[in-house]
């Protein structure tokens, strides 16, 4: 309404630097993971390095062409055929025509859509679409390759194939920059890592060191979000307290989480709560959205909500809980509202060393039977 009444008034804005004081050097042939929490500036860094946006200050020197493998399928036009799209997308990503023609067969082979080259891609299944798009990008011959969370596409088989392809790229002596939330692919792919927090470079070094710092960073976030007014969300309602009944559980225990939301008489309409449980790597293990179980809450009364999570066996480790209070949008987003620990005491009859469960996100109740 305000904008309608005063159409010529300029909206006020505050200046925001997404990145500052970033200083690092990457030798040729390294695969570097860029790690940080949401909003740490990872994608901005990649955008500046790939020249999508220009920096306001500073200097970047690149030892060659940069190809970016950002979102899969940008640059694909649904009406064009597979063949036409390969050429269009290849050109967009910086390939010369001769390069594309030379590698055309390889691209088609890798994608496995050879039969449908003359079909407009709008008729492709989403899997085929993604495979073709990835194949074009993966065959870029630029000296530097920037990747933003795209390896998580397609089915498991294609994902492994892509990961292997990316590893080959790095082995060829080309430089790979990789942004991801998935720690598993960073460890699998990268030889070095950079840790960003709040737009600043915190650490640059080995993958293990950086991952360690990344895990620790979850605790500092919990401290800053404890003050309700500093949390994101409209603030119409704010959770006043989130508690875990016990801060230490075993894998099989029911996890009981208590959430207090004070009333706000001015807030109209019932709201729902979504609770995310993240593991130490920041991977969301489960989302407990109250809409799924038809639980809605009335803002006219103080609410003391008890959430019981059962039915998964958490792997030993540290977990953080994010609480979101939502109606049409997010009213309160409290990341790291509480933490709990799951004891390294396995719920199985035999005691084994860690290796038996290493890398598993969750444990399960299973049985082997001879038939």
């Amino acid at each position, binding site marked *: 309404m305000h904008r309608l009444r005063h159409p010529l008034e300029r909206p006020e804005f505050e200046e925001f630097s997404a990145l500052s004081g970033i200083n690092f050097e990457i030798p040729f042939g390294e695969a570097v993971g860029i790690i940080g929490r949401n909003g740490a500036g990872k994608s901005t860094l990649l955008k500046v390095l790939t020249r999508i946006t220009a920096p306001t200050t500073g200097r970047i020197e690149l030892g060659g062409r940069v190809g970016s493998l950002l979102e899969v399928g940008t640059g694909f036009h649904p009406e064009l055929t597979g063949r036409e799209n390969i050429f269009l997308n290849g050109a967009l990503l*910086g390939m010369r025509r001769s390069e594309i023609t030379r590698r055309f067969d390889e691209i088609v082979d890798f994608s496995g859509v050879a039969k449908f080259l003359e079909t407009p891609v709008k008729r492709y299944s989403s899997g085929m679409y993604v495979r073709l798009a990835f194949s074009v990008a993966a065959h870029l011959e630029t000296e530097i390759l920037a990747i933003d969370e795209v390896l998580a596409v397609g089915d498991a088989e294609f994902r492994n194939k892509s990961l292997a392809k990316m590893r080959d790229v790095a082995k060829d002596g080309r430089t790979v920059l990789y942004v991801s939330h998935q720690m598993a692919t960073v460890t699998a792919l990268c030889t070095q890592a950079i840790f960003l927090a709040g737009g600043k470079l915190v650490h640059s070094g080995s993958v293990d060191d950086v991952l360690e710092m990344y895990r620790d960073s979850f605790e500092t976030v919990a401290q800053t979000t404890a003050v309700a007014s500093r949390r994101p969300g409209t603030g119409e309602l704010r959770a006043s307290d989130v508690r875990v009944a016990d801060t230490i559980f075993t894998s099989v225990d029911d996890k009981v989480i208590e959430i207090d939301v004070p009333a706000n008489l001015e807030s109209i309409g019932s709201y729902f709560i979504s609770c995310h449980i993240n593991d130490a790597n920041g991977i969301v293990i489960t989302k407990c959205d109250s809409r799924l179980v038809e639980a809605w809450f009335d803002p006219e009364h103080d609410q003391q909500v008890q959430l019981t999570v059962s039915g998964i066996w958490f792997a030993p480790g540290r977990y953080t809980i994010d609480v979101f209070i939502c109606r049409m949008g997010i009213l309160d987003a409290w990341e790291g509202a509480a933490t709990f620990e799951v004891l390294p005491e396995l719920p199985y009859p035999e005691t084994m060393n860690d290796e038996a469960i290493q890398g598993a996100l969750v444990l399960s109740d299973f049985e082997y039977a001879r038939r």
Partner: protein
Amino acid sequence: MSKIVITPPRRLNLPKWRELWEAREVAYRFGQRDVILRYRQTAVGVIWVLLQPLVAAGVFSIVFGNLAGLPTDGVPYFLFSYVGMLAWNFFNGLVSRASGSLVANQALVAKVFFPRMLVPLSSVFAVLLDFLVALALGIVLLFVYGVNPGWGFLLMPVWLMCLLLFSLGLSLAASALMVKYRDVMYVIPWVLQIGLYATPIAYSLSAVPEGFRWLFYANPLAWIIELVRGSLLGTTPSQVWLAPAAILVSVVVAFLGVLVFQSREREFADLI
């Protein structure tokens, strides 16, 4: 191995011509995409290109030639307005396509790096193709009506170049401004609609009363269209200064368009 240095852009940010040239494949592919898309899944395909100026010229000759009886300096009215429409369609097509091109390719501009200027520039392909097809038909019409354009016909590419530069300059500036101000999107069709009647296309400048004529001479597009028409129909342009002025203005407009575009380029990915 070539080394690339990225620094904050300077105030006067001239395009890197070499980079543009190296990425010409992108413009070519965009152009190809436009052309293919236009005629894929249409029943009569390329015939649309011929139909548009023919029908427009036909309507004009009925309304303005027969009903209003506007003078055409002795040229058959249909031919007169066909040639006018030919030049106008080029201008109109390029400005309306190119000015919206950045916004139409939002996803690309925000996600992939390539010289941004190629996006509006690539609109030239489809528009030029239309123009050439319609021009070929125009030449056939010249024979049909028995009009001999004379040696002036050889200057046609020069005036076409002027028209191209002039239209591109405006389009580049408009496309860059549209990234931030979508108002441009609403203004352009409106201006183009008025322009069709405000520019001497359906009538010749001699039909305009003396007192108003300066107003029409203030429109550089009128100069270029008169020159194009002169070279195709063998008429003499009404003023001697039209030719040098048209060349000068189109070069200046193109240059200014490039400057406006470049000065805004750095914010495209953030604002679009």
